[in-house]
């Protein structure tokens, strides 16, 4: 339980980000450290000016999926960003932006929401990952 959970987030849709946030919060609640590595469209979703915007859903959601997701949010479920914030409150959660993706998207660290703790490359990510699992979302 002491090995970190390491999540590489690539997809930037609200459903996948919520799934990632739930996995993060669950691990944090168990005292398990979590390292999140934001790449591509997941990184784009963490832009300060876009984080609360609608990032859509994966195509497999379809119309029924959209209704189901909206219903859960209407019932008071926290946004994925808020779920990540609650997870961070528990401690042990580190969220880093992939420096390659920062270049791809022409982003500066100041463009990102405060949820993002810093920018790092894949080597630092692997060092921090230790013997823990690496999960790609």
């Amino acid at each position, binding site marked *: 339980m002491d090995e970190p959970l390491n999540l590489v987030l690539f997809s930037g849709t609200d459903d996948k980000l919520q799934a990632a946030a739930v996995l993060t919060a669950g691990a944090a609640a168990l005292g398990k450290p979590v390292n999140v590595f934001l790449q591509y469209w997941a990184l784009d979703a963490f832009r300060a000016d876009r984080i609360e915007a609608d990032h859509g859903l994966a195509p497999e959601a379809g119309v029924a999926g959209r209704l189901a997701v909206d219903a859960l949010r209407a019932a008071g479920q926290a946004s994925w960003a808020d*779920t990540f914030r609650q997870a961070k409150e528990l401690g042990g959660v580190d969220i880093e932006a992939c420096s390659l993706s920062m270049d791809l998207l022409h982003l500066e660290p100041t463009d990102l929401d405060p949820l993002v703790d810093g920018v790092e490359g894949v080597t630092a990510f692997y060092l921090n990952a230790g013997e823990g699992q690496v999960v790609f979302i």
Partner: protein
Amino acid sequence: MAVIEVSQHVDARGLSCPMPIVKTAQAVKTAASGELIEVLATDAGSVKDFAAWSRTTGHELVEQSADGGVYRFVIRRK
């Protein structure tokens, strides 16, 4: 039924996974060792979640019950 003194109440009714556990973990952070925390939840998955969480973290699940779709858990902060 013995009367127990609960130090904190966590109302997680209406919250979906993982919030009942997350809220409980947040409450544990502010609780002193030995204090009791009572949690109410409506999420059906919380029964297994609290058992697993208690086993993993070592905070004892002292009591649990269900009444009309509301689950009640009492945790002792280790």
